[in-house]
């Protein structure tokens, strides 16, 4: 991490002094990297998973503060992942941000049965994602 990138993102830095952990699940490597870099530069601890099952295992063992997940993933879709987390009392409280293809919308029932707080369509603005992450985590802290 270079000093330059630190200053660039310092404006949007994490809301808390205690470092929060975020799990990023996406089967697309470049998305994982872009999202992780943006979040790490902003002071978050980032865990990554390249499919839904791996994400579920990590979520259960590491209990991250937030999940950012793609919708279309092998093994377990993003929605199934969120629903499984919601069913388990230990992970039910983990909020999720879902990344989807542009134009795709979730049914209200789907959001109700999962911890999905909001959706961003790809290609998304990394700045906007970071702002959303800060907002969701701040919302929980409040």
């Amino acid at each position, binding site marked *: 991490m270079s000093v330059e990138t630190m200053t660039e993102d310092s404006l949007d830095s994490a809301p808390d002094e205690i470092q929060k952990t975020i799990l990023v699940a996406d089967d697309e490597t470049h998305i994982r*990297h*872009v999202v992780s*870099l943006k979040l790490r530069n902003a002071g978050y601890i980032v865990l990554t998973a390249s499919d839904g099952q791996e994400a579920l295992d990590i979520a259960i063992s590491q209990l991250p503060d937030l999940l950012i997940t793609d919708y279309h993933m092998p093994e377990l879709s993003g929605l199934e992942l969120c629903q499984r987390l919601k069913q388990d009392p230990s992970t039910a409280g983990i909020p999720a941000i879902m990344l989807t293809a542009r134009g795709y919308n979730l049914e209200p029932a789907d959001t109700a049965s999962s911890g999905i707080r909001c959706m961003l369509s790809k*290609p998304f*603005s990394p700045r906007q994602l970071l702002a959303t992450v800060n907002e969701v985590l701040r919302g929980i802290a409040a």
Partner: protein
Amino acid sequence: MVTTRRNISADSLIGQGLQVSGLPTATLDTLAARFCGAGLFLMVLDPSGTVIYHDSTANLFFTKFLLPMVRSTGNLRAQFIEAASHVTASSSISIWNFLPGSIVATFPHVEKRQLGGIVLLAAKSEGFTLDEDILREAGHLGLDATWLGQQADLLPDFNEIELGNAGQMFAAMARDQARIGVFEQEINSLSMQLANSYEELTLIYQVSGGMKVNRGASDFFRQACMDVRDVIDVRSMGFALCGEGPSKLDPALFGDIEVPPKQLQKLTDQLMNVLRDRKSTLLITNLSKDARFAWFAEYANQMIAVPLQRQDQVLGCLFGLDKVDDEFDSVDSKLLGSIANESAIYLENAMLFEDVRSLMMGVLHSLTSAVDAKDTYTCGHSERVALLSRRLARELGLPEAQIERIYMAGILHDVGKIGVPEAVLHKTGKLTNEEFDQMKKHPQIGARILADIKQVEDLIPGVLYHHERFDGKGYPTGLSGENIPLMGRIICIADCFDAMTSNRTYRRALPLEVAMIELRRCAGTQFDPKLADLFLKVDPEEFRTLLREHQARNPRTPTVPEAIEPKK
């Protein structure tokens, strides 16, 4: 002290491996831990011979005995350096066994073709015994010989070949670690670029979403400036368009920085002059030091400006003033460049759209002029009906697009009179039944004329039905009530009102107020009562102004009737 030295060729390993710049402490720790397990000790000297790294977790034989010995023996270190500076070229490992009880492999760490330092890998030598040399050194260092022997017993022995092999392995691992470090940096840098591309893509997506040609240029550019401000932390973002038609707009600035209009105009005029020659992005990081723009330094420190180009012509520019807590960089410049390209495409389309629109309006006006030329008494009638219809449509609260279509239909409503003989149009006396039948054909003739122009198909109801009556006694179809299309009902009122308030072959113009009374009287029979009500709600003075303005533009048209003098 016996000193032997042997070079083991390891070109492929060290030559490539350690030439990669930088062996961060974390990497050295990783490597040191691995070799520590095998009984080896890692040290790194800088080119001046100072120990800059050692494995602090290593066996005490190394950290308490060997390390202080290396540290205190300047001429030994000088020998390492000397040897290393020779072997830089041949890239080889040197094995040294002149230190008591130890055997040391050294190899140069080359950074950017310069000797960055010396890597030392030490081991307990084969056949280790507490000999004279060791006891003397231990004595110097104040170490207990028995204790030292116990520490040494924990370590495996190494001969020259074994250490040489370990050294080669170390070099290979160091090379791998360094490459991993480089890859990680590359991934980070690519991810950063990708993140910026995502920002750019999102912005372009957003801006092109707003690229509708029928949207006003000022609206479009205002939105584009706002969108850019969302993505880059620019304090103010503005635009200027200095072309013609839709590409002419007063400069505008959005954001935190307040610049008086006069100064803004001066700035953009000057910017346009620079950009016209330059035809590429202008970035000024310190305005006060720029001869051309120093006067503007009281408003901003930095400025970035991109030209909006259509072919070779510079039509305008987008410009940003001051970045919040930062300076404009190449990413901002690239982003603004993309937005400028998008905007220029919008502008070009808007200009083409305006061309086509004005061509069509010109053709339609010509058609109307042809009617007016034939029927000079009603000169300007079409335009006035159009204006009155538009006023009524606005009162009705219709959407702006529909209001404009009604205006157009008003312009064209009598176009069918082209097909009515002049003798009938110009007749001063009462028309015979046959003549009146001919006259009554003009809505259908007009509809037929327009039917061939796809772009005005939607105006046909206004033309075809403007002589229908609300009570169903009109022509050509005898439709009644709300079955008559709205456009027809609106134009009908405007048409009759203008006919009453203009001079005709058979009578002088009626005063507006009289026409309004007549309109009220015929509401529900001839006219749609709701529309008539709305029309009557409009202040007559407004109609007078409207008609007077029309007259001023068209001096040949009849004069506007004055208000009735109040009776005394």
